[in-house]
């Protein structure tokens, strides 16, 4: 085929689309460049050599502290959160066949936020220290995400009704927001401020201990989703065709739903309610690279990471010395784009 390169081995064959491969390479380079710039600039701007030495821990103590212990973890968190949110959105859109489905619009993020607030409240002692390990936080967020998605699907009943899915998602997200406010008022004041920060989506104050929790989860989820990428192909087919191919719709649905929820939880556990990544990025990826599932997965991951990273960069440099929450910037980028897509570009 034109524009494609085919490798054939003894037991496998791979087709690369030249355009997609080049595009992905370009995006990855862009991500790397943004990472380096992100490491360099901020309240304190370092030279190129200092930045590289700082990453390795070879520069002076001050540079080391800022580059290696303050900036690097938050950049990694932004990348993990962005990639996770974008993939979660992709899976959710695939699963529900609703092009507007995304974790933030369907209330999944708010459900996770509610559980996180409860967790912070119930497991704090009198001096506002957590009595259990912070490692439980991603699992609590996962529980909240599962809870809200289950509730939503139970209410919608018919999977592909865009109308109900979106409306009930909006309603549920309102409910969870209200409950979160209640929990914040009822709980100690430190929980309220912590939860408030969480809700608007913040990647600063990230430390290596959080990355240590998240990175293994994220990597194993990526492996899982790549292993299961054929499910994404399948869900483009009609349900009867799927049955005709001898595949179980229920199993496919369950796997996609669990993976999507797990990705959402990974993203929101520490980075909080960063919105619009899961809505906008899959659309953009489809527009740029077409519908090939594996390419879509990778491009979503890279573009999602890029979006959150740039939003974080903007948040901490544009209004310096103030820091604007990352979620605010993803919303400011994502909303006009969404309006454009929705109003002018058909489903």
């Amino acid at each position: 085929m034109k524009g494609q390169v085919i490798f054939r081995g003894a037991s496998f064959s791979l087709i690369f689309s030249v355009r997609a491969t080049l595009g992905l390479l370009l995006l990855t380079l862009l991500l790397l460049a943004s990472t380096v710039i992100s490491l360099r600039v901020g309240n304190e701007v370092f030279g190129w050599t200092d930045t590289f030495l700082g990453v390795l821990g070879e520069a002076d103590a001050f540079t080391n502290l800022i580059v290696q212990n303050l900036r690097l973890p938050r950049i990694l968190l932004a990348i993990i959160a962005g990639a996770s949110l974008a993939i979660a959105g992709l899976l959710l859109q695939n699963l529900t066949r609703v092009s507007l489905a995304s974790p933030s619009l369907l209330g999944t993020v708010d459900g996770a936020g509610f559980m996180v607030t409860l967790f912070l409240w119930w497991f704090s002692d009198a001096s506002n220290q957590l009595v259990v390990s912070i490692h439980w936080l991603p699992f609590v967020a996962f529980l909240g995400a599962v809870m809200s998605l289950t509730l939503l699907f139970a209410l919608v009943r018919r999977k592909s009704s865009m109308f109900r899915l979106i409306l009930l998602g909006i309603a549920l997200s309102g409910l969870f927001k209200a409950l979160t406010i209640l929990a914040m008022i009822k709980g100690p004041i430190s929980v309220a401020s912590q939860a408030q920060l969480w809700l608007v989506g913040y990647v600063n104050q990230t430390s290596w201990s959080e990355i240590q929790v998240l990175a293994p989860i994220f990597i194993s989820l990526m492996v899982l989703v790549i292993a299961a990428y054929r499910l994404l192909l399948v869900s483009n087919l009609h349900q009867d065709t799927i049955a005709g191919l001898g595949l179980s719709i229920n199993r496919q649905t369950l796997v996609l739903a669990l993976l999507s929820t797990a990705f959402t939880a990974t993203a929101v556990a520490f980075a909080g309610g960063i919105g619009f990544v899961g809505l906008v990025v899959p659309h953009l990826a489809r527009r740029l690279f077409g519908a090939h599932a594996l390419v879509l997965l990778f491009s979503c991951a890279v573009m999602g990471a890029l979006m959150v990273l740039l939003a974080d960069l903007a948040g901490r440099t544009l209004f310096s010395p103030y820091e604007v929450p990352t979620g605010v910037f993803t919303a400011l980028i994502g909303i006009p784009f969404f309006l454009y897509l929705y109003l002018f570009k058909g489903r």
Partner: protein
Amino acid sequence: MLPPSSPRRFYFALIALMVAFITSLLLGYQSYGLYQLVQAFAGEVSEASYILLDLRLPRAILAPVVGAALAVAGVMLQSMTRNPLTSPDIIGMNSAAALVVVVLLTVMPGISLYWLNVGAISGAGCAGLLVYLLAKIGHDKHSLLKLPLLGAVITLFFSAMTQVILTLDEAVLEKALFWLAGSVTDRGYDLMQVGLPVITLGFVLTALCLRQMELLHLDESHAHSMGVNIKRLHNMVLLSVALLVGGSVVLAGPIGFIGLVIPQFAKLVFGYRHRILIPGAALMGALLLTLADVLSRFVIYPQEAPVGVVTAIIGVPLFIYYVVHHTSGEV
């Protein structure tokens, strides 16, 4: 299906509202009996009379007024857009008013309450106009989903902007907190002097075009043949919705879900004729917000919850019920 619009339902709603009003006076952190209420009204000075007359009476009056304003605004917006899934708060009027207030407080710290109000009302009006215009461009003009979806996104946009300003200027946060979380407690008389006339004006405007409202849902050519200038009517309605919503944001902050669910249930009770529906919805809205205000004192007793939270907790299940049972699922 047109339910009989018997006056009995009005009387029933009125009596319920009166009961709720008295309950709102009596119950709270410290609860009182009817006897103490009568004594307080008779002019006896005591701790009870202070709490009843100075603390609870203002909010017991404010809650029904704001509730009625929001419900009426909801009915008119739904009729005008021919969409039962819209309401002022859904299309972002509340969040726009909040944004304008925060911007004004940042740019002009010494701004008078009067101008703050004008700002809130014009913010609400502009957001309404924006969503109304956006809904007219692009494809699937007739999808019921369009307005709520656009509204939800616009709301997120406005709150993101508000968030930026609040992060940059923490001093404003304290002053603006008032407008960011809905509540009917501790509203000063100066606020009421500004907010109540605005709402009254909104009600008067509504009453003036009440006779034409029946034709609100018609499109241009049909309305023209009925001898109604539909554009002028739409402008009037949008103006009164902006006044009602702006006024209630000034008085109580953003309170959601009343304008969304009350019109739907008012239609079930009072039918579809606006001359009956609008007063009926006003009564039901007043009732709901008064009850929500009473409940807000007990949900996390001894603390008080913002009344906006309580209306969300009551409103969301009602809305879900409506969507699941009264829409076909495919639009």
